């Protein structure tokens, strides 16, 4: 087994043991932080997968929430209808083996459905470039949302309850690890250099024998798959889905994370996902403490304004993202590899 694969297995085992020993303790004693922890995981998956499309391949997709919605509703419907039959789970309660198996299957199903949606959207729309692609993907996201809003078996605007809260730290951070592994090992190969050539110069890439359409579709499908997985995690954590949870602003949130982290820098995007999930909550926490003088309390009460202001400042000072394309970070780590 190669070293990178060993690292992956090690990371997965680590996630499993943390989940096995610490899950209940964290969930019952620090429920609020547990909630944030899961949100961070979901956002990391969404952002690192979108980074493959927007960062490494240089396409501009604004429809990631759409794929997440496909995954969330797919896994919810699967669990609602099939879990009682396959795993004997009634009203979301069953033995741990059954619920974990059910979670695994529904995540796979969610990813597969989102990947199919990604393929269906990608093939026709990836002929478009730049702004046009952004508009088409934005349109796709809205179509998904409005479709769900009108589909009665998905709960329409009433929302859809998902039995059981299967999502735990293992599934969340296991998926995070897997997503990062997939993106990094794809990009760090001769095959994966193709994604970067598409971003840098499509004409030159074609002239070097690289099928740019194939690469764009591949990036889109992989990203959609993981958005679907993130959707499944979200669905089985919140236990209740509404179409409004997957609106245009959800997509923008993910794009903001990718841009802030630095397009094409996985480590930067992971960092930004953590930062931008914690920041609004941290600002909320600061609002009612004694550390902040009363005069500034009003600023913190309008924390979304402050949040936007921080984003603007960050973008002005680090237009290439927190970590740029990652080369500076690698240098800082003191290792310079050929890839």
């Amino acid at each position, binding site marked *: 087994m190669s070293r990178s694969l060993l690292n992956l297995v090690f990371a997965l085992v680590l996630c499993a043991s943390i989940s096995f020993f610490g899950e209940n303790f964290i969930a019952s004693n620090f429920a609020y932080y547990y909630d944030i922890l899961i949100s961070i995981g979901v956002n990391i998956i969404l952002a690192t997968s979108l980074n493959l499309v927007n960062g490494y391949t240089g396409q501009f997709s604004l429809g990631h929430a759409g794929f997440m919605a496909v995954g969330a509703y797919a896994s919810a419907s699967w669990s609602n209808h099939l879990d009682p039959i396959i795993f004997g789970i009634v009203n979301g309660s069953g033995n741990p083996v059954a619920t974990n198996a059910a979670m695994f299957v529904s995540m796979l199903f969610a990813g597969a459905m989102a990947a199919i949606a990604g393929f269906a959207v990608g093939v026709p729309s990836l002929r478009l470039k730049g702004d046009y692609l952004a508009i088409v993907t934005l349109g796709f996201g809205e179509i998904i949302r409005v479709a769900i809003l009108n589909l009665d078996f998905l709960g329409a605007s009433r929302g859809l309850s998902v039995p059981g809260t299967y999502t735990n730290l293992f599934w969340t951070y296991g998926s995070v690890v897997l997503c990062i592994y997939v993106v990094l090992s794809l990009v760090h190969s*001769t095959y994966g250099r193709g994604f*970067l*050539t598409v971003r840098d110069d499509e*004409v030159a890439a074609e002239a*070097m024998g690289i099928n740019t359409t194939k690469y764009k579709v591949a990036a889109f499908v992989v990203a959609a798959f993981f958005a679907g997985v993130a959707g499944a995690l979200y669905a089985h954590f919140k236990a209740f889905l509404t179409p409004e949870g997957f609106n245009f602003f959800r997509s923008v949130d993910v794009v903001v994370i990718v841009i802030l982290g630095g397009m094409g820098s996985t480590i930067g995007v992971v960092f930004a996902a953590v930062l931008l999930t914690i920041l609004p909550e941290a600002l909320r926490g600061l609002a009612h403490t004694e550390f902040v003088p009363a005069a500034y309390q009003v600023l913190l009460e309008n924390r979304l304004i402050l949040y936007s202001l921080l984003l603007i400042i960050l973008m002005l000072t680090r237009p290439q993202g927190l970590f740029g394309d990652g080369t500076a970070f690698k240098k800082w780590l003191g290792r310079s590899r050929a890839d």
Partner: protein
Amino acid sequence: MAGTLTGRLMESLLKLNNCTIRFGGLTAVSCFSMAIAKGELVGLIGPNGAGKTTVFNMVTGVYRPTEGEVLLAGERLNGLKPYAITGKGIARTFQNIRLFGSLTVFDNVRAAFNLHLKHGPIHALTRGKAFLNEEGAIEKRTLELLKIFNLERFRKAMCKSLPYGDQRRLEIVRALATEPKLLLLDEPAAGMTPTEKSNLMKLIEFVRETFDISVLLVEHDMRVVMGICHRIYVLDYGVQIAEGPPSEIRSDPRVIEAYLGEA
């Protein structure tokens, strides 16, 4: 050099048969025929707007000829996508350098090995032995190629940080990594100093011999074209006005007229 005309046509690698291309009402190239033999170095010249780059784009699949056919070793290339044509064995460089700006010198060349890659995305994920062996082999060949062109000391540098002449050479190295039978060079001498031009002429000759390939050269600089080409085609307003060895072309009255106007 290829012998008689018939002999040349027999063993021609690239053949254009009466290729015409129209953009709306404008005929950019009309009834252009050309043959390039294996190992031959052919020049394509003409005044500005004569249609040289259009011919280039027709061969590489960027444009599709309205009439006529493009054949590589007898195989029809009409309608193939540019990447597929590169797969058949035609590689090119660009008039204005188009390197992959965010990649290192090493990765620019490595990316071009994609074409003959045996492994795919799944292998990149599983990282099996065969995958690692192939990656190692590609790395070795990339470094070999860079070494031949004295670029290996820049391998970790970003390609944009290279001097202009080296960037042009890197483009040629990248094109060679696709293992072409025919190399198309689009104005390689543009923007070069006289010394760089002399080096370029040696380089092109060297590439042709070392890699045993044919070269089609589009160039404005007459010293370069006349100095190294075996045969030259001259285009004016999309029509071929002359064809022959440099010595003939230099004294051809139609060529002189096209370049300098009527005497």
